[in-house]
């Protein structure tokens, strides 16, 4: 992508570096963290450990993928944790009727809830925070009502094809990892290269202007919330395939984890700016922190929280600091 346009004043080198650092700040942090961890713990850089981390990050990553779209439009989706759990339960229940049902049922239900979120936000102009908060309660309520108040866990047949979506390995790496990578590539293409992607940025960058420029603001918003619902549902389904059961107690606090990952990845919560790849890095960074805490071993559970809170703050401070110069004007 080169233009023949002559540049009046190109950015200086330090500006370019700080621009790069902002875009890839999370990646730099991740690389540093990984290097530090592998130097400190000889059980870190093992194939097993890396594969475990990859697979168990996959589900959060898929949720964060949908969240990235939402956040770039300047919104937020708090319902993803509940939808993740609901998706898993529905998939486990549906798996008795075959893989298609196991996948389509959670997608349909979670997508529908996402759609309702989107409609309330875009058409009725309610605040995303509160709409998706209500959806978070509502989806949890639905989950409880279909599991006999949470007391029933549906199981997935271990030998079914659906289970291999979670359990199978390709080239020694778990299927969820491949699926997630595929989804991220698709997501990045859509966001960067499709017209819809342009609308997503435009709506987040300046909603009024986008509307006046003829961007379908409402439709774009409805789409991103639906997408987020679908992602959460799919992540839940894959997770259920991995755990071979529809665990009912999953997903609480997951929305905050997903938001953290997206923000760490360099996407602005105010909207209009962000990258899909950043979110993936953000998820991995969170995972590495957790892994390092476990590598240290005997850290008291209370201190673990202090450490992860402080780390979150540090990463975001670093992000902001790197990005600051570019945002002066």
């Amino acid at each position, binding site marked *: *992508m*080169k*233009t*023949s*346009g*002559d*540049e*009046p*004043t190109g950015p*200086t080198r330090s500006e370019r570096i700080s621009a790069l650092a902002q875009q890839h700040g999370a990646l730099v942090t991740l690389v540093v963290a990984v290097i530090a961890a592998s130097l400190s713990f000889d059980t870190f850089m093992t194939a097993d450990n890396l594969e475990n981390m990859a697979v168990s990050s996959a589900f959060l990553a898929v949720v964060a993928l949908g969240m990235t779209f939402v956040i770039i439009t300047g919104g937020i989706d708090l319902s993803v944790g509940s939808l993740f759990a609901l998706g898993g339960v529905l998939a486990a229940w549906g798996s008795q009727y075959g893989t298609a049902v196991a996948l389509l049922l959670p997608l349909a239900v979670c997508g529908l809830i996402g759609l309702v979120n989107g409609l309330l936000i875009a058409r009725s102009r309610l605040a995303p925070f509160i709409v998706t908060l209500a959806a978070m309660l509502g989806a949890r309520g639905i989950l409880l009502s279909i599991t006999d108040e949470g007391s029933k866990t549906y199981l997935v047949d271990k030998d079914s094809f659906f289970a291999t979506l979670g359990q199978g390995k390709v080239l020694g790496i778990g299927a969820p990892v491949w699926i997630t990578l595929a989804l991220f590539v698709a997501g990045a*293409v859509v966001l960067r*290269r*499709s*017209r819809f992607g*342009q*609308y997503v*940025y*435009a709506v987040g*960058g*300046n909603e*009024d*202007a*986008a*509307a*006046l*420029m*003829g*961007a*379908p603001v409402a439709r774009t918003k409805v789409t991103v919330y639906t997408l987020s619902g679908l992602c959460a549902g799919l992540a839940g389904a894959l997770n259920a395939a991995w755990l071979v059961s529809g665990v009912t107690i999953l997903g609480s606090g997951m929305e905050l984890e997903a938001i953290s990952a997206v923000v760490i990845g360099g996407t602005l919560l105010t909207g*209009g*700016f962000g990258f899909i790849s950043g979110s993936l890095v953000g998820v991995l960074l969170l995972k590495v922190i957790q892994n390092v805490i476990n590598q240290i071993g005997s850290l008291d559970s209370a201190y673990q929280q202090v450490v992860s809170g402080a780390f979150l703050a540090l990463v975001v401070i670093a992000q902001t600091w790197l990005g600051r110069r570019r945002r*002066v*004007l």
Partner: protein
Amino acid sequence: MPDVLSVASLTKTFPGVRALDAVDFTARSGEVHALIGENGAGKSTLIKVLTGVYAPDTGNLTFNNRQVAFATPLEAQHAGISTIYQEVNLVPLMSVARNLFLGREPRGRLGLIDFRRMHREANEALRRLGITVDVRRPLRELGVGTQQMVALARAVSVDAQVVIMDEPTSSLEPREVQTLFGVIRMLRDRGIAVIYVSHRLEELYEVCDTVTVLRDGKLVHTGPIAKLDRLHLVSLMLGREVGEVREEGATKFSGDHAPDTRPILQADNLTMRHHLHDVSVEIRPGEVVGLGGLLGSGRSETAKAIAGALAPDSGRVAIAGETIRTGSPPAAIRAGISLLPEDRKAEGIVPGLSVRENIALAALPRLSRFGLVDESAIDAIVDTFMKRLRIKASGPHQKVGELSGGNQQKVLLARWLAMNPKVLLLDEPTRGIDIGAKAEVQKLIDELANDGLAVLLISSDMEELIEGSDRVIVLKDGTVIEELTGPQVTEDALMRAIATTGSPSD
């Protein structure tokens, strides 16, 4: 010439305001139709109703002889109505090219956007308007004028039957205005209907064929512009007798002031990477100093650096000899510097607060005791300034966001005048202001200078700059290239100063 777009007895009310009252309006193919009126007359509202931003209360919209009702700007756009709205309405974080092509990006294989083509075409579209920028840069890095040209490029690059421009020239420099006029004539010759809103009357006579005058939401006149002389036009707008209007000159500046000899404001060697290089400005009490230059020459940056809104890398700002902390608006304001910012929508008004709160905002600490607000003191000040500046609002409690552009500007002026500043930095103070109000603002500047205030005036209106200033400092690429004093302060001299050194994009 066939009618393309018309409305009959259109009414639109906002809470407390009837913005449009039974207005009839018709745009014809191959005609440039001027829409004029005072601030708050309803011009922008009319345009927004025509293009589906607002739904009318009553009134029929006819487009190509068919009754229509546009629910969204998108529908209007698809039908063939292309609009540049009053405030630059683009997405600042997106690149220039993406802004230009939003919603109609060239697509290649698999329906994916072909960026190579998009950038090439964006470059061409802008070059035709005399703009050369890197189209991959975020839009916000461009000056307001360039942004306006991007919006123009966007509007004319679609196949439209009607092109609407709401005050497109307010942030353009003369050369760009001429480019714009070229584009307008080209559109007209292609048989496109152009609706053109502006407060600059000379422009209307230059490009328009027909004129419609609105006053307080009502239609007061419509007809060929050639039949109406300037005086008549103004009297129609203001609703005053021709005789009354005749007595007023072109600008309201009285001429020279008698400034003090010791400068009150000294800004020395302000430097900010990429933006300013060793810019020094001195203003004496009672003096109006103009800042001249092309778009992007760093005038706004200079004003902002003095007012603490931007932090210069080096340099000194002093008031009456006392150096103040740079980069801190409160410090500047405490020292007596007030800045009327250029981008009033984003940096000036607080849209959700009332006229009253907006006026009192900066003066709050002075208008309160022990942290408690003194309501009656505020009422007094608000009342004074609403009267003095003739702010048109349904009352002091109307939200500023609901006021017309010109009245918003007056509210901001009131905010700063309420501070009794020593130095007033005015960045495009009369942009988007109707001629009545413009005259008032100019008169006010004059009065303020006569009362001993030091004024820095930034204006893209050459006439205003020359007439209003005692001295003009000319900037180019963030550097002072010339200072015009005394008899040198003429339009010719200013033009020459700018021209001899070339334009910044070359």
